[in-house]
């Protein structure tokens, strides 16, 4: 059988993976959910036909969205994670003993159920007693919280569909309010490469810089995301991700990571010129 999954990475570019088996398909109130067994990337979760997570490369995304802020401020204890229904972000966070409380807000309960059943590699730590799941709109959840979190991680889908609200000015402003006075916001920041992604990336950067004194962007390489070149945003009220990095302290924790280390932490903030220009354009 010759069975290929195809995703458009731009209107003119396609990305394709050979599928061995279509393990699950379903439709929630919000989106279409599928799990594929692929030849190269292991199990793959797609939402409305867009790849969210693959077993082979998810470590890159999840390492970098969590350990960068965690190594910058060693005192992070209370965290809000928005989106992240696959559980990978929470899995990384639960490696830290010092974390006391994680609120995870996912709009679509069905995504969590499907991942628990089909992708235990990422969803394995959702039952940790420190993790509190809330199935509701992230924008609504942050509205009613003030001065409460050390870290907010926005592990969102794209700026269209159910994740739309998580790229808006009102959302970032509400996050600012929900963070403590030394709080950090890390967000999935789209890609600088293809035009449409780049526009979303610039819009997000512009909106975040309106609220936070420190606004940096760092990059990673994720093979299954459009162009492979992906960005995260690091915004904070106080901490600088490089100057305040305490590499020794983090290394002494002895955590096992497959992608993250404190050298790449620093290096990931070095950006290509075209990305710098895109960011400067909206600052």
């Amino acid at each position, binding site marked *: 059988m010759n069975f290929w999954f195809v995703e458009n990475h731009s209107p003119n570019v396609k990305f394709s993976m050979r599928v061995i088996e279509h393990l699950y398909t379903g439709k929630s109130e919000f989106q279409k959910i599928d799990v594929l067994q692929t030849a190269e990337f292991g199990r793959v979760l797609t939402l409305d036909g867009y790849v969210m997570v693959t077993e082979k490369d998810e470590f890159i995304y999840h390492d970098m969205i969590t350990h960068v802020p965690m190594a910058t401020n060693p005192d992070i204890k209370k965290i809000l994670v928005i989106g992240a229904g696959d559980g990978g972000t929470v899995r990384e966070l639960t490696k830290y003993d010092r974390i006391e409380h994680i609120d995870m807000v996912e709009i679509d309960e069905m995504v969590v159920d499907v991942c628990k059943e089909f992708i235990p590699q990422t969803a394995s730590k959702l039952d940790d007693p420190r993790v509190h799941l809330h199935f509701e*709109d992230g*924008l609504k959840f942050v*509205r009613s919280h003030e001065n409460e979190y050390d870290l907010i991680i926005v592990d969102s889908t794209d700026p269209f569909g159910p994740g739309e*609200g998580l790229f*808006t*000015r*009102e*959302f970032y402003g*509400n996050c600012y*309010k929900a963070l403590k006075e030394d709080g950090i916001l890390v967000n999935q920041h789209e890609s600088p490469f293809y035009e449409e992604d780049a526009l979303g990336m610039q819009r997000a950067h512009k909106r975040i810089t309106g609220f936070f004194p420190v606004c940096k962007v760092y990059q990673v390489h994720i093979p299954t995301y459009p162009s492979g070149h992906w960005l995260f945003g690091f915004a904070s009220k106080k901490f600088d991700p490089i100057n305040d990095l305490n590499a020794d302290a983090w290394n002494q924790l002895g955590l096992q990571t497959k992608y993250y280390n404190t050298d790449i932490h620093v290096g990931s903030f070095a950006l290509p010129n075209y990305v710098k220009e895109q960011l400067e354009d909206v600052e």
Partner: protein
Amino acid sequence: MKILSQQKAPIMEALNKYKKMRVVPFDVPGHKRGRGNEELTAFLGENCMTVDVNSMKPLDNLIHPVSVIREAEDLAAEAFGAKHAFFMVNGTTSAVQAMVMTACKAGEKIIMPRNVHRSAINALILSGAVPVYVNPGVNKELGIPLGMAVADVEKAILENPDAKAILINNPTYYGICSNMQAITDLAHRHGMLVLVDEAHGTHFYFSDELPASAMSVGADMASVSMHKSGGSLTQSSLLLINNEVSEGYTRQIINLTQTTSGSYLLLSSLDISRKNLALNGQEIFRKVGQMAQYTRDEINKIGGYYAFSEELRNGDTIYDFDTTKLSVHTLEIGLAGVEVYDILRDEYDIQIEFGDIGNILAYISVGDRRLDLERLVSALAEIKRRYSQDKSGLFDHEYINPQVVYTPQKAFYALKETLPINDSAGRIASEFVMAYPPGIPILAPGERITPEILQYIQYCKDKGSFMTGTEDSKIEHINVLKEAEK
């Protein structure tokens, strides 16, 4: 008698059939099904262009409907509980004007609240009818004009027994309803027609939980903006008649100003929307009501804002409230409604229906998504966090009782001169001044300009309201009656 089925959409069906006939068009419109205007066709789509056709035998004629338009109008009449429904293609403005001109000739009186839409007063300029204004109540806390008190209407009727008709807003822009049944019965006892501006009330016909509609209380005519809550295309509207109002005479009045090239895009949109409302309206407006209530509750949780609703009911000037409306009082956070309106658009990419001095109105419909409601609420929470300020210095608007010196028609056509608006106090206006939206005149032709009115106009300008009405597009000058005319 023919049995009507609300499943049918006669105009749409006739257009579909006509398309299949592949008739060769040697008639207007000259774009010939879009082929003659490629850019427009690419922009609007071929489907749209192929049904932009002229009146003809198989498609009937709006100025004298005898077949499919007639059938569609009959279906609409049935759906709205009216004797007859006219399809209108120049907005509810044309429906309001047709009502007034059907009911009153030049020099005849019509009783109306002053907070009517400009279209009603424009109808007075066209027809020469004479307004008798009833002071609408005002809610002091919110600064909004309300409905008419039954006792005030009775007083106006007794003082003007020769009046031909009374015009009622059902509801106002903010969702406030007068006691329609009592006012209708009262007017009928005195031989007056009841005309109802239901620009914001289409949904009342399709819900048991919402305020009474004009036809349900036995009113004589109603103008219904299908293009607002009814879902049809912008500019399409319905005029309903009831009781003894003559269909033929009303049609003649409509045809005084109506185009002879009624758009089939608009007509079919009325037809299809009527079908949808008749079949699914109850369910649609139950959902809209729930969304509005959810959003109202969430906004009230923020604190400072007041999203008001049924609790305002007082048995008279707020006899009933349209709970699908989402009106929010903003003065307590120290911002005028129009300022919140501007911030929502400029900073949050959220466009709401209007903001006036003390309130904003967000229009909720079946097309809204939950996540958009969350955005609106969160943006309002943010605006409060970032911009709220001391509320002193904000104007709380009182209803300004107009001093009517001349009829609108006489004043509009009188000899006039132009003055800088700030030098015009004491003079009589020959033209309108209003903030749009909501398009309710602050000053209408024939009314005396007072320092209080000028102060209010200046305040609206300062807060960024979009002002309109005067010949001078900058609203710096105003036409007033020549002194000799006074």
